[in-house]
């Protein structure tokens, strides 16, 4: 008996050691040379640009790949794989000439690689969840939804160096879109060679960007090295980048303090106060708007414009943005200030905001609105929102504001993100705290949401005048006129109709060592661009 007991103990210990042995992978950390240590909060699912949907993948793809264009520090598209381009007079045909660039395996980057990559993302069997970003291309939507063939799609390699793209409508933002992950080129031979395994390991893909993926310890870290085959390698100053996967922000900050990390993007709000006054603190304004949506399909009282207006004016968004959410600036309209208007100028510069907190006016409007509806009091409603810390604080504040400023009672309902989406889709809400982030650098990415019948127009806002303006703007080859139409439409939505109540424009807060220079941040698409970054150690 004794022997057997000891035997089982020994087996347990040996088993333990064996298991531990396969867990330990050696990895040298700490910076050597011109290497940046960056925190990342998760693992990219894989690096197949045709199916990527998440920030982590977008960021990494932006470092190891390159599309026809690359966004510079002002979010303006710069020529990248494309050396030049021409636009037809009707602004619907783009012809790109490719430069002499190479993949990391030495093969030239060809126009066919673009055609293949884009069509692969659109192919229904790829089931890409970002395929709709290619919809500005002629027949792209039809092919994606099985109503047209691959040959009908408006992208064609005329020869190895010439790519012709036909669009559905004149789109001033199209050039910028070609920097986006789904628009990256893909090599047919490599994709087919690895099949399902494609882009799941560093050696199962090829690169054409400033860096290459050198190693990838799943769930632990991945490292980039400068790409010696990159066409613009003289510009790239970093020798490499170590991405360390640290899920907990507080742990990442501990590592930052002990010099294990040089750059910690997206710190959570509880650390903002501690770093706010230090040079390491770098907020980046995103192209994301947080707003209240009213369910006008279901709630008769919310169909009254004066009542919506009262709610829109009755919330002090200054306090909300700066003291409660602590992650942005108060919003005075729908389109965030970082987005383009389509004629080379920022949209917000052409159309300042409309919403201003005004308690007295709001009270008056509410009283009038209720009278029109024949009500003596606003019925108690449910205010739906996410269950994140930030969302909960915002919901609480809005509830208080509505109660004290307007005498409106709402019950808060905080649910997980997925449930909030489901309820919004099903129209199962009264007022919901929503947000939307830009897909591309143009005000249209926000404005077409509120077209009658748009799937994301959850509150059911509808105004024929608005629809007309947006539809005209979408087809308008005169980009100055197009901008005016969009400005007018937004004014109708926000000022005349109070279709939504804008709350704040979000920003993300980063910790970045002051000796890092040239690290570029974007308000949409990939968060960062490391191509121009330098580090003075």
């Amino acid at each position, binding site marked *: *008996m004794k022997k*057997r007991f000891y035997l*089982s103990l020994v087996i347990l*210990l040996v088993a*333990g050691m064996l*298991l*531990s042995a396969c*867990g*330990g*992978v*050696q*990895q*040298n*950390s700490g910076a050597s040379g011109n290497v940046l240590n960056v925190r990342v909060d998760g*693992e990219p*699912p*894989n690096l197949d640009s045709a*199916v*990527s*949907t*998440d920030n982590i993948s977008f960021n990494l793809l932006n470092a190891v790949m390159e599309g026809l264009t690359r966004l510079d520090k002002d979010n303006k598209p710069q020529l990248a794989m494309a050396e030049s381009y021409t636009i037809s007079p009707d602004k619907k045909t783009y012809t790109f000439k490719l430069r002499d660039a190479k993949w990391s395996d030495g093969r030239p980057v060809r126009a066919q690689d673009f055609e293949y990559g884009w069509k692969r993302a659109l192919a*229904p*069997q790829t*089931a890409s*969840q*970002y*395929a*709709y970003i290619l919809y500005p291309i002629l027949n792209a939507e039809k092919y*994606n*939804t*099985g109503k047209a063939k691959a040959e009908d799609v408006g992208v064609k390699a005329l020869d190895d160096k010439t790519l012709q793209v036909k669009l559905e409508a004149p789109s001033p933002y199209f050039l910028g879109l070609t920097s986006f992950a789904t628009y990256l080129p893909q090599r047919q031979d490599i994709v087919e060679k690895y099949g*399902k395994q494609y882009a*799941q390991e560093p050696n199962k893909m090829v690169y054409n960007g400033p860096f290459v993926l050198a190693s990838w*310890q*799943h*769930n*632990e*870290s991945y490292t980039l090295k400068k790409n010696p085959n990159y066409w613009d390698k003289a510009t790239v100053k970093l020798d490499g980048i170590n991405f*360390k*996967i*640290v*899920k*907990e922000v*507080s*742990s*990442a900050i*501990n*590592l930052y*303090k*002990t010099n*294990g990390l040089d750059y910690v993007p997206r710190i959570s709000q509880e650390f903002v106060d501690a770093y706010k006054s230090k040079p390491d603190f770098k907020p980046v304004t995103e192209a994301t708007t947080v707003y209240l949506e009213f369910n006008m399909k279901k709630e008769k009282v919310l169909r009254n414009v004066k009542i919506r207006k009262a709610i829109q004016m009755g919330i002090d968004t200054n306090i909300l943005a700066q003291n409660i959410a602590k992650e942005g600036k108060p919003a005075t309209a729908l389109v965030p200030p970082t987005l383009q208007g389509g004629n080379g100028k920022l949209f917000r510069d052409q159309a300042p905001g409309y919403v201003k907190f005004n308690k007295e006016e709001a009270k008056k409007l509410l009283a009038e609105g209720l009278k029109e509806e024949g009500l003596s009091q606003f019925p108690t409603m449910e205010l739906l929102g996410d269950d994140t810390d930030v969302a909960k604080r915002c919901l609480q504040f809005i509830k208080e504001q509505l109660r004290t400023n307007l005498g409106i009672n709402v019950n808060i309902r905080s*649910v*997980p*993100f*997925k*449930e909030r*989406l*489901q*309820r919004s889709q099903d129209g199962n809400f009264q007022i919901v705290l929503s947000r939307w982030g830009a897909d591309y650098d143009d005000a249209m990415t926000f404005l077409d949401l509120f077209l009658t019948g748009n*799937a994301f127009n959850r509150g059911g806002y509808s105004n024929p005048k608005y629809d007309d303006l947006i539809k005209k703007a979408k087809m308008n080859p005169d980009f100055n006129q197009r901008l005016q139409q969009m400005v007018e439409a937004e004014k109708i939505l926000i000022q005349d109709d109070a279709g939504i109540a804008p709350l704040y424009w979000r920003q993300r807060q980063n910790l970045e060592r002051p000796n890092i220079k040239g690290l570029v941040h974007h308000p949409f698409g990939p968060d960062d661009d490391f191509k121009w970054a330098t580090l003075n150690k």
Partner: protein
Amino acid sequence: MGRYILQRSIYMLVTLWVIITFTFFLMHFMPGSPLQNEERIPPQMKALIMKEYGLDQPLPVQYVHFLGNLLQGDLGKSFQYNGRDVTELIFQGFPASAQVGIQAVIFGIVIGLTLGVIAALRRGSWVDNLATVIAVLGVSVPSFLLAGLLSFYVGVKLLLLPPAGWGTWQHTIMPSLALSALVIAQMSRYIRTEMLEVLGQDYMKTAKAKGLSRPTVVFRHALRNALIPAVTILGPLTINIITGSLVIEQIFGIPGMAWLFVQSIQVNDYPAIMGVTIFYSVLIIVSIFVVDILYGIIDPRIRIAGAKE
């Protein structure tokens, strides 16, 4: 004994089947779909993708499909990881979780055993009181608090060990220590109580009367008998630690599988949820079984169905 094992195996399979069935249907009641880009995907496209994944079929059909694949050892492909095999994901994460867990159990046993024995031998002394305090703290202070304190003081202030990360043995020390607090506490309490009981038995007097040396009495006669209950808690405790290290893995940035589990549930990654659930269930069911068998080996009084043998 053979019949007993066979019978138990059948029960184990039934248990597993019940768990699988419950989890399968419960997870489909969660709101939302497994699409990652659900917030902005156009509805007609969503329908096409759901069809592509086979999620448009009625639940019972999906269930039969799933069971069929499972019988062939195929756990399916993860949605959130763009089609990586669930089995691959589990075996990527498990070694790290297991390493930290097993180290924690070993720390726990060694420290807990020592504390327990000393406390029992020096009952009422300051050592005993100290052991009691440690035990109370170990049970009542949550491991994530301990982890946070360790990471901050040992990692950031004293710079003795890396505050987070993975890769070298130094990285494993603090998480293992933080996790082992519970084992230390439970072990030392069990051993102390059992030691005290055993020390009061008549055969201990006999041993002393025979003139055996004190170490021999304590280690060969007392401790061995006191170990029996300790071994019985070891199985479930080990599993608890290996599987329950979620927060610890988060705080120290360990590439384990706890995160996979939580993340899969948050994003409705059905195949991953099922895979991890099945993996954990098998681990727990088998370990309970092994402990039951071990009882019989260690202590003949508890031989379950082996009366005839």
